[in-house]
């Protein structure tokens, strides 16, 4: 956020100077174009962050205003200029290549919005009515979502349609449609021009702020859990890297067995913490002692149960200390415990030695049938590749 404190006022100031210079030409459309371009550039810097750290730029809202307010050629000029400036002043840390990819993605989304809006407006008979304009704008939003999803897939990024992604798109879509309606007006009524962009950006900025706070605290929470798992490793109570490896592996297995995202999040938290209880034991069992897993899981679950936000993780850790046969409760909870148990037991055997992976897997398969759920073992095999 710190980087933005300088850049955004600078961009806005540059935009004001540009608009003032443009007003000398006596062409109001040019002034509007400069103002909207400034909004697009600022919107490129404000990103609604999703769970995985990637984001959707706020610029997609004023993009709709540009799409309804100008002819196709002008839209192309405004959007292209904004994308180039946005890439130049942006905070993207992925270097030139990353910035080029992002710029291409923005242009594709812009083209999709323009095409969908105009196509739909023509298809609906170019009628000036709220329903027609609204319908065309909603079509444009849908096209933007589709193209953005395609672009993410092309870059092997996960889908943006997660819990936060759906909220981000709803906020951007609703605000963008409203800004565009207010800017353009319908049949000569309700057009308040740039006022509409300025005013309706207030709730959007509030939404951005909430997204940002949530992203920061999510990261802090994850890092706290990782720090804890690291502490037991630094003290030699747990094998180095065990927490991180188990978290990564159980996440992959959980995806493989088809658990939902919120359960996966609980499994990852549980994976980071599943050895924490070892610190409360007066006489911790040796790392390979036979009943160690059960004892540690038991005390850890007791610790985590105290925290309302970690009760799910506590349940998963509690089940991790048991055989598949002895698990009770909901099917998803049992499965989650098994995912953690398989990942942790596998890592106990294999560590970070790729050569030991195969024998470790075979050893798990060779255990008595009541210890592991076969489906989870098969998912482990797939996850290992």
């Amino acid at each position, binding site marked *: 956020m710190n980087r933005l404190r300088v850049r955004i006022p600078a961009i806005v100031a540059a935009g004001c100077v540009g608009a003032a210079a443009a007003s000398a030409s006596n062409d109001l459309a040019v002034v509007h174009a400069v103002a909207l371009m400034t909004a697009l550039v600022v919107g490129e810097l404000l990103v609604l962050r999703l769970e995985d750290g990637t984001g959707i730029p706020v610029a997609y809202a004023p993009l709709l205003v540009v799409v309804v307010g100008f002819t196709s050629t002008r839209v192309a000029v405004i959007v292209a200029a904004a994308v180039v400036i946005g890439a130049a002043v942006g905070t993207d840390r992925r270097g030139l290549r990353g910035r080029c990819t992002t710029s291409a993605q923005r242009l594709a989304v812009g083209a999709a919005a323009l095409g969908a809006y105009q196509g739909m407006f023509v298809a609906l008979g170019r009628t000036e009515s*709220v329903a027609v304009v*609204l319908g065309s704008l909603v079509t444009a939003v849908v096209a933007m979502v589709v193209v953005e999803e395609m672009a993410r897939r092309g870059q092997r990024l996960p889908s943006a349609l997660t819990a*936060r992604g759906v*909220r981000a798109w*709803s*906020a951007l879509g*609703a*605000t963008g*449609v*409203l800004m565009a*309606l*207010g800017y353009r*007006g*319908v049949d000569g*009524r*309700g057009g*308040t*021009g740039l*006022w*509409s962009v300025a*005013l*309706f950006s*207030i*709730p*959007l900025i*509030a*939404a951005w*702020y*909430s997204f940002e*706070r*949530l992203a*920061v*605290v999510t*990261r*802090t*929470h994850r*890092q*706290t*859990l*990782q*720090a*804890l798992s*690291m*502490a*037991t490793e*630094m*003290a030699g*109570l747990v094998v180095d890297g065990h927490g991180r490896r188990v978290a990564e592996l159980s996440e992959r297995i959980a995806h493989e067995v088809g658990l939902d995202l919120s359960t996966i999040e609980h499994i990852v938290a549980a994976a980071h913490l599943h050895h924490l209880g070892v*610190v*409360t*034991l*007066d006489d*911790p069992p040796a790392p390979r002692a036979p009943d160690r897993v059960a004892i540690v899981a038991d005390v850890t679950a007791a*610790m*985590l149960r*105290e*925290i*309302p*936000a*970690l009760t799910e993780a506590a349940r998963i850790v509690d089940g991790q200390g048991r055989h598949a046969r002895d698990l009770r409760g909901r099917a998803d909870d049992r499965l989650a415990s098994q995912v953690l148990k398989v990942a942790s037991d596998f890592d106990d055997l294999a560590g970070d030695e790729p050569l030991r992976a195969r024998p470790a897997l075979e050893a798990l398969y060779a255990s008595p049938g009541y210890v592991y759920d076969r489906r989870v073992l098969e998912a482990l095999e797939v996850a290992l590749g």
Partner: protein
Amino acid sequence: MPEFPNVMPEFPTVMPDFPTVMPEFPKALQTYTAVLAAAVLVATAIAIPTSPMPQWGTIAVLGGLIVFSEQRQVHLPNGAIITPGLMVGVAAIVVSGSAAVLASLVVGIAAGLTLRDLRRGRRGFVVLNAATIALSNLAAAGVAIPLSDRIRTSAAFGVVAAVPIALACASVGALLVAISYWVEERRPIRTGFAQLLTAFPQCVPFALLGVFLGRLYLELGWPVAILFVVPILLARDLFASYLELKAANEATVEMLVRALEAKDRYTAGHAGRVATYSLYIGEEFGFLPWRQERLRVAALMHDIGKLVVPNQLLNKPGKLTADEFARVRLHETVSVEMLRSIDFLAPVAPSASGDHSSYSVTSDRVVEPYIVAVADAFDAMTSTRSYRRALPQDVAFAELRNKAGTQFDPRCVEALINALERRGEVHGAGHERDIEPYETAPPVVGIGSAGLGDLAVEREAHPRAGEVA
């Protein structure tokens, strides 16, 4: 974006020093509530025959919206409340034009009557809030009606007009609430009013948005209202999950501190007290809230690495071997590494050497580690440990001052002493709160084996101790 008039719905939480859960409706407020309710009824009775009727379909849409949004308030940690209620209220007034008197009353009553208080059985507050919101909306309508024609035709005029509309609404609301404070607990009306009106600047953007929402609604119809509220409700939702996750993280840290204190019973309450003293020092330095928050968490976690020290070593009677001592000292490295691996705390983590108990003038850019070091040493000296009893406070002060400039940052030492003296707090021998029962009472002075962070302080601070023991 805390909003003003709708602070009132959650009436008791407006004042920070007020209990959040009110057992029942205070008797003193009954008459006042009745007067306000009567005023609303009289205003309605006068308005029905004299003023034009609003379009009831519009009022239903906007009233529904206000009810929906009032159900989704966010309570900020500072006691303020976020709802888009004021905005929708102003929109209803602008949409209704000359019929705004009835519209404002109806929407205000709808907002007040559907609050959560109803479900909590606090019906008195429901009536009080409904009447207060209705009357402050009425004030806004009083300002808006003469301006309504120009608001509809000129966007720039709408922007200007939002200020007096918000001011009317906010000041009437603040006045009514201030009077209720006076009725209930004789708090002077003037101070209550001034305190409440500080939220006025935050109302203006909402009023502004309300004016524009109203204008657009007039031209383009109800879809506008729905589109408008979506981002606001989403922002609210996300902000709520932010607060929730923040609380979860806090609970995690607190669980760790509890687990830590369970390992070593002589340090019960230590982390909490170090956090308190650190905040005292931070306050003396004029830290902003976010910086205080970071300081508090860093102070709570300052010894967190002790978690991984085996229990036998922590509580071992007698001297530690060199090997055991090294294992115990590992906790400092672990604590520092943990703080450094969390971005939010990394800037205040002590230097990598882990030596946060010595002060050097050259590296005082980040003062937090020195604050925590002073708070830690002060609490170590003024509480009973397995190896010695608590020292009196003046001895602790003298030791801190003695080592100021070499071991401790002198500014932090003076800040802590000032803060404690100003508060009139006394800690140390005879004033301990969390005393653990012990089987054999520790000596009055002495050095024990729990050679943890404070040991270095103890050894240097009390050279006599070793001799006596």
